[in-house]
């Protein structure tokens, strides 16, 4: 494990899905990092991590795209990815994808600097948050890649758990996949549909008014089902929020491990942060 010096700046890898479908999740993540005193660099030449092709068996096509991405992070600083799935691709599959390639060392170097967004907030920054706004009932859906590939399922829980006005409800079969799986949803639409319908039902049954997740693939899938069921069967529709959006709206950054300062709360005392 590499020990990080005080990370005063990070690269932000927005992911292709956030870029075109949920940019607000990306903007929120960047703002939150800034509020925690971090300078954010967003290489404009980024496109996609290559995962869709990788998971479809098109390894050469995936590698060519990945090769362009690994060249975007020359400085030895963390790369923050607001997705367990894309983070997992870069951290765990780039080494495999570049095995024996001339740029293998660079791929490994990049892989070693990948942090999923919630992981970065919790493990690196040790961020302390205070909740704001009205009492809210939420359910958390952790993506399978965040849970099993990145092993960061507890981070999102830890972050939301800091907000005293938020009550987390647990849906049944919580650890079960929502049925997105990238191209799986297209190649096996019937199975995927059955999975997402069950997942949406389970979350709705908790009574939560907001579903929070850290992966936009799951969000597109589950929120699409919420909306469909709302339109066609008049079922209640919980809101869907990426964790970055949710935290930006519903919390204040009190401090981080580095005490890098945090604009509005510069006079916050240590004690208050543990309150």
């Amino acid at each position, binding site marked *: 494990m590499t020990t990080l010096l005080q990370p005063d700046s990070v690269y*932000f890898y*927005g*992911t292709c*899905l*956030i*870029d*075109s*479908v*949920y*940019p607000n999740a*990306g*903007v929120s993540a*960047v703002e939150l990092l800034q509020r925690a005193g971090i*300078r954010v*660099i*967003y*290489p*404009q030449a980024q*496109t*996609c991590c*290559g995962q*869709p*092709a*990788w998971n479809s*068996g*098109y*390894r050469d*096509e*995936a590698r*060519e795209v990945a*090769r362009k991405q690994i060249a975007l992070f*020359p400085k030895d600083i963390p790369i923050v990815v607001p997705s367990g799935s894309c983070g997992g691709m870069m951290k765990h599959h780039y080494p495999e994808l570049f095995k024996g390639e001339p740029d293998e060392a660079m791929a490994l170097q990049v892989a070693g600097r990948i942090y999923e967004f919630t992981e970065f907030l919790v493990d690196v920054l040790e961020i302390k948050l205070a909740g704001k706004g009205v009492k809210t009932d939420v359910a958390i859906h952790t993506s*399978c*890649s965040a849970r*099993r*590939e990145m092993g960061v399922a507890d981070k999102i829980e830890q972050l939301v758990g800091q907000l005293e006005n938020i009550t987390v409800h647990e849906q049944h079969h919580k650890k*079960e*996949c929502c*049925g*997105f*799986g*990238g191209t*799986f949803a*297209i*190649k*096996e*639409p*019937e*199975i*995927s*549909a*059955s*999975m*997402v*319908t069950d997942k949406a039902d389970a979350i709705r049954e908790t009574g939560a008014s907001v579903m929070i997740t850290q992966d936009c693939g799951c969000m*597109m899938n589950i929120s*699409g*089902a919420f*909306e*469909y069921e709302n339109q066609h069967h008049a079922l209640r529709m919980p809101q869907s929020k990426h964790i970055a959006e949710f935290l930006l709206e519903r919390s204040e950054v009190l401090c981080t491990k580095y005490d890098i300062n945090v604009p509005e709360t510069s006079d916050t005392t240590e004690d208050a942060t543990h309150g």
Partner: protein
Amino acid sequence: MAKLSDFRVRVEDALANEEVRGNFRKAMDGLMSRRLDQFPDEAELERLRTQAMAIRSNSLDNLPDLLEKLETNLTKNGIQVHWAETVEEANQHVLAIMNKHNAKSMIKGKSMVSEEMGLNHFMEELGIECLESDLGEFIIQLDGEMPSHIIMPAIHKNKRQIAKLFQEKFPDIPYTEDVDELTQTARKILREKFFNAPVGLSGVNFAVAETGTLCLVENEGNGRMSTTVPPVHIAVTGIEKVVEKLSDVPPLMSILTRSATAQPITTYVNMISSPRKEGEMDGPKEVHLVLLDNGRSNIYSDPELLATLRCIRCGACINHCPVYVRVGGHSYGTVYPGPIGTVLEPQKDGLKAHGELAQASSLCGACGEVCPVRIPLPSLINRLRYEGVRQDQSSTKDSGSRRKTAEALTWKGWSFAAQHPLIYNTGASAAASFRKLMPSKMGAWTRVRTAPPIAAKTLHQQLKAKGIDNE
């Protein structure tokens, strides 16, 4: 609209069958939570998995030597060994033994390798009766079905369905949905058969090279009966089932039974080390072992896919699979269903026949997380997708056979755009490609979901406008 594949047709039927889906959900939920109770200490579980993986890896690392040793020691113990490269050869070996004893029937303990061989069908064509004695196998045999699970072959049926089946097949016996009474009925019928069967056939869980011992775990005692009552016992198994030492068995067995049926140990543990010896009162007079390859050597030749052969057939990956729990075992159309089937079947029978299964996974990782021998099932599924579309030759059967020009072109186009931000940022974005990948299939997505909303301004544009540094 292209015609649905057989697999997709079976999947649609299965998804529409609420009773069967309910049966699977209930059974799998129970199995998952009971398994969890068996491993209260997560660190201990991880240690046991590493240990079990090491034992199985060692077996595979030394497979040729161990098989030779196994044969030597079995032979020394008086157990006759038969090698079969194909299922045809394996069936012929069994037939030759049957013929030698002029046997017209056999009683069977549970054996997935015999399913792989299509043994029952093969024998029945020749007028030889094969009676399944495992309760689950007995039930599906009555109904003319295939196993829907490798450990619990009749798990797709609930007790009401079984009661009705018994009523239809044994009209003289009063109708009951009482599980104990149903079991008693089967037991009575089977007892008779055990005493008259000239041959008993069983599978093997582990074959110990060092001692020439065949280990078999089971819960009903039918395995013990099949292997001890008839005068001839034939065991059939795959060549990968060998382990080096007797001391390898306890740790493997313990993680096997806990992962499979959430039992610290099964009711019966059979260690078969020889036929009846001089002066002994019981046991078969002859014991045979048929060792089946059926594509396993080929799997063995690939350093990554080789991990497939570590499998100890516990079924945990199946129990935890969100796809299996919905489509059930029969949808797969293969002997082995679920994640292990998805990995094994396309390698064994070729990607042309079963490569489609590799698509039927969301790669959620639930299988890999529970596998007691740490087979990286999601990675192997991903690898088989690659094998399906790769352009060069590889050792995997039918590699490249699933490549379709249109799809390959789409990925090439996607790749080109994603390598060129200027092109990518002007419309070839994720959502756009996502839609392109499903030309006429947006319908499938929108049958239960609304279409993904495309943002007015991309993240690239918004962060640029906010003055976020580019480097």
